[in-house]
């Protein structure tokens, strides 16, 4: 094959990839579950943006009486110090989403790199990487998180780094098995014949085809990250002065919100987490149904 032919082949491939991606986006917007998922996630982002620019109070200002049920001035009441729960929730949504998506992006990066490398190169590389993944998957996650966080400085950055390091193994397994099947396709063979190196093939042929899977896993990793960070904060670990869903629940528990029947303080952060989970699952199911339409079910 001449250089020119290889060039033409590449252009053909890349244009078909772009149009496939566009087509995929179009299908997403016409899929009921996908649309519902997107709307939920978008609303949460909107809440975060509102919180960042227009929270009604400084979350640390304590001018109101403590444990006050919802009023006109404080739509979600006040906490044990008289801080405005609505402002905590609005700003906390931003922090929680930021933490979740930071973790998701870092760990997806590691997971994709490890999975593609193991799947594409196979042999000893695959063996060693997958053994490491096995070990990480077997060690119970939450206790490991607790012990790491207990010994490292209690900052939000620590939490993000620790969770990123522990979150990638499962994704790397998924990516590896996908890579194993993609590697057998005709167009990968064509690229090989045209003399592209292993890494070129990975970045041009393999990873672009994994984008729907990576996308949905980033969302799931973000949900898992938000929940894990909240769990850690609830356990008294990490930066407890940070305003997020986890610290809201921690202070509720630590300052006896139960005794004061302070449901207005308990419900918002939990509903935030549930909404995020439901949104992600809708989107995940939709992507699964759209990418594997041959499978039975609906």
């Amino acid at each position: 094959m001449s250089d020119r032919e290889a060039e033409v082949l590449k252009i053909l491939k890349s244009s078909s990839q772009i149009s496939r991606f566009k087509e995929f986006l179009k299908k997403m917007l016409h899929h009921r579950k996908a649309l519902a998922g997107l709307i939920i996630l978008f609303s949460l982002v909107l809440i975060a943006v509102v919180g960042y620019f227009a929270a009604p109070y400084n979350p640390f200002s304590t001018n109101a009486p403590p444990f006050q049920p919802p009023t006109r001035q404080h739509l979600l009441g006040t906490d044990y110090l008289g801080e405005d729960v609505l402002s905590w929730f609005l700003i906390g949504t931003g922090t929680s989403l930021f933490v979740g998506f930071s973790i998701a992006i870092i760990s997806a990066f590691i997971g994709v790199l490890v999975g593609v490398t193991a799947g594409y190169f196979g042999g000893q590389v695959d063996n060693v990487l997958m053994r490491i993944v096995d070990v990480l998957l077997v060690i119970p996650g939450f206790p490991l998180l607790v012990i790491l966080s207990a010994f490292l400085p209690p900052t939000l950055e620590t939490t993000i780094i620790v969770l990123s390091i522990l979150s990638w193994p499962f994704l790397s397994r998924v990516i590896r098995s996908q890579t194993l099947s993609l590697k057998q396709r005709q167009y990968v063979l064509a690229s090989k014949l045209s003399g592209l190196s292993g890494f070129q093939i990975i970045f041009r042929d393999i990873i672009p085809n994994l984008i729907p899977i990576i996308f949905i896993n980033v969302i799931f990793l973000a949900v898992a990250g938000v929940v894990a960070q909240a769990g850690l904060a609830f356990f008294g670990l990490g930066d407890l002065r940070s305003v997020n869903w986890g610290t809201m629940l921690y202070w509720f528990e630590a300052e006896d919100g139960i005794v004061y029947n302070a449901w207005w303080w308990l419900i918002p952060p939990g509903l935030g987490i549930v909404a995020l989970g439901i949104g992600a699952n809708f989107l995940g199911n939709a992507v699964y149904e759209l990418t594997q339409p041959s499978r039975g079910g609906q």
Partner: protein
Amino acid sequence: MVTLGYVIRRFIYMLITLFVAITLNFLLPRMVPGNPALLILITKYAGNFNPNQLKLIESELNLRGTLWQQYIGYWNDLLHGNLGPSYYFYPETVNQIIASRLPWTLFLLGTAMLISVIIGVIIGSYSGWKRGLSDNLLQAVSIGLTSLPYFWLALIFQLVFAVMITINGRHLFPVAQAYSITVTPGLNLPFIESVLWHSTLPIITLVITTFPGFALLMRNTVVTVLDEDYLLLAKAKGLSIKTIRKRYVNKNAMLPVTTSIALAFASIVGGAFLVEEVFSYPGIGYALYTAVTVSDYPLIEGIFLIITLTVILANFAVDLIYAYLDPRVVLK
């Protein structure tokens, strides 16, 4: 079929995993800047101590000598089953604390897991078999339920059933603890009643968030099994629907559920810890929470070790049981 080679290989993997976990457990506290022995003395005695005390605590915490010597000493202690002293519960040792708390956690986890698997298998089998409405309902409900964070659900239950709702001035369920102070622990009816009453909310919390996973898995495998050729044969033979469901579908579909129990166990542990924190349930998770809040490092390490050990052993066991349960699986 399981070959000896397979068992040996799984065993070696298990040992490697254990080795990694234990080494991590040794290294982490030593990576923290500062001297933990000094920290204890400063926090406990506000600086009123002499150098001998420091040496004593250092040797008790196995902090003397080079890192390598400490590592050898650590393994030595470990192989003698000695997890060291607890800072906070002193003079109680970490061993004693774990021994008295672990049964409570295992009780919660074991019961919750058993109930979740049973409910999951029944619902999953039904909706996989019937499809249609029940199937869609299962998917929607399980999405909602699995998105519930354990500890938030626990707090909601605590608020609603142990604080808000009262009948004749009495609360439906207790807010905290594993049994009431009026009963004497032992094999007597009031104690058992009290234990069950106290564990209801924690167990329900764990079950609600755990069973949907099993139900979905069961549903999916039932759907797959229904397409198998041997089912066509069974129908052609004229076997009753009931026999087919029981003997052919459910039995085969149970297999993946069995293996997933080990993985679910690793994740439910975290949930159980948080639920224990909410209900001040005297298990190992609540001990870990206490240890974290008072920086009781030996206790944190000890609990991590025991839990990791349990989960790794459970995984190993399930690997072997699976091959035994499914004669089609040949593991070399």
